[in-house]
């Protein structure tokens, strides 16, 4: 089966700083792939390439077999409709209510009536366990609720792929657990392929079907969690040791 997302020979440099050095990665349909790495390893740069916010210096990114790395912005905008992205700090529009935030992609990309939009927004919020918050502003929500509203906005156009940027960073353990469950639930309820970038080892081993360890701009190891746990690479083991020793 053709991978949903396939990255081949991806390289990116900012001035003298070579951030990504020859990345190869496949993500299959329905899979949760966690790109694990320390701060500054190039995770955010990689995810920005996948959604076309950055263009590679070399290499290609295939989404459903289509190379998006040299696509015109107009075509890229069409491809982006098959993606949903959940940002680290949710990136909800703070001047809009929860309803307006979640409805935003529908208003921009569909010709649905307001009553239909309202119905779809309520449905997505309810699936994610959010009730009667449509009229609240993001500032009135807790961190976990913001994440779920961000996810509701990301899935409102029924995308095929969801990207999560550091979903558990800065959250307390209970909210972290809720967000992990939210990612697993989202895969089941919305039938999506998920890519998560994170440095949270515990979360990665809880939710991932596949883990890719990014170190210094290179994916050193990739495979199922058990394979990663047993891999011999020194840098990977040093990274994992910080968590498993604690556990």
């Amino acid at each position, binding site marked *: 089966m053709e991978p949903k997302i396939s990255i081949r020979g991806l390289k990116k440099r900012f001035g003298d700083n070579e951030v990504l050095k020859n990345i190869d990665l496949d993500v299959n349909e329905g899979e949760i792939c966690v790109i694990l790495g320390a701060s500054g390893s190039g995770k955010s740069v990689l995810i920005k390439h996948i959604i076309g916010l950055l263009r590679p210096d070399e290499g290609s990114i295939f989404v459903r077999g289509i190379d998006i790395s040299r696509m015109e912005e107009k075509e890229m905008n069409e491809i982006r409709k098959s993606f949903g992205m959940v940002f680290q700090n949710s*990136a909800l*529009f703070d001047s809009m209510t929860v309803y307006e935030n979640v409805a935003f992609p529908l208003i921009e990309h569909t010709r649905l009536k307001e009553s239909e939009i309202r119905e779809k927004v309520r449905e997505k919020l309810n699936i994610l366990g959010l009730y009667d918050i449509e009229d609240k502003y993001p500032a009135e929500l807790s961190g976990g609720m913001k994440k779920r509203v961000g996810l509701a906005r990301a899935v409102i156009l029924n995308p095929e792929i969801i990207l999560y940027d550091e979903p558990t960073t800065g959250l307390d353990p209970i909210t972290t657990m809720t967000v992990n469950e939210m990612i697993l639930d989202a895969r089941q309820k919305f039938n999506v392929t998920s890519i998560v970038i994170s440095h949270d080892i515990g979360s990665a081993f809880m939710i991932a079907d596949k883990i890719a360890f990014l170190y210094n701009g290179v994916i050193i190891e990739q495979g199922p969690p058990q394979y990663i746990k047993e891999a011999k690479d020194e840098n990977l083991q040093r990274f994992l040791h910080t968590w498993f020793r604690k556990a």
Partner: protein
Amino acid sequence: MDHIIKNNILLNRALRFFEEIGEFFILCIDVIAVSFKPPFRYRNIIKELDNIGIQSLFVVLLTGAFTGMVMALQSINVFAKFNAEGLVGSTVAISVARELGPVLTAFMVTGRAGSALATELGSMRVTEQIDALYTMGVDPKQYLITPKMIASVIMLPILTAAFDLISVAGSYLVSVIFMGIDAGVFIDKIKYFMDPVDVTSGLIKAAVFGYIIAMVCSYNGFFASGGAKGVGEATTRSVVLSFITILVVDYFLTVLMTKYLPGYVLGG
């Protein structure tokens, strides 16, 4: 060569300066280009007309009234030496219509709406709201900057016209009501010395200043970085650069108008 560039701080700053100028002009061209492309977000434009225009009206009227009043007060004493107090109205009207109206209105709008605009875009940048727009397939330049640019170009001339009117009313109050100058002479001299081109030249300048305010403040906010501190710096820079650009462009517009605007003569 690379080594020389890397180690020369002055050269680096100069290169960065020209890079920013280039980025600014690319943004200006992009925003004009996307403003002619659908979707046309009328609701956003109306919101910005209110934000930039209506909400600036009070501060513009207040500034205009006191500018007219103080100009009248100052010029009466000078004209009194030549028994020409009747010229106060026309002097205030012409200088306000040609220069003070558009420039001071632009300053007020920069201080009130331009700074808010830079802060809003800067906050959206550092909290990834602008990236979120990209990921949802929405062009942030078209969604965020175009309505502000259109509203600013429309509202600046309207606010300037209001400034002009209230300034003349303020000078009338001081000259006629407080200082006892004959009302007929005051109005007659304005009619005699003032041409429609005095007003239109000021309104043209105001529209150009509106574009400058929107683009300078948007540029600084849109490319802000470095968290809350970066947003603060972007706001300060957008206000200072707007003021300077307005004054520089004002000079060159005046030179151009003397050459190409029929009936526009320096000195009235």
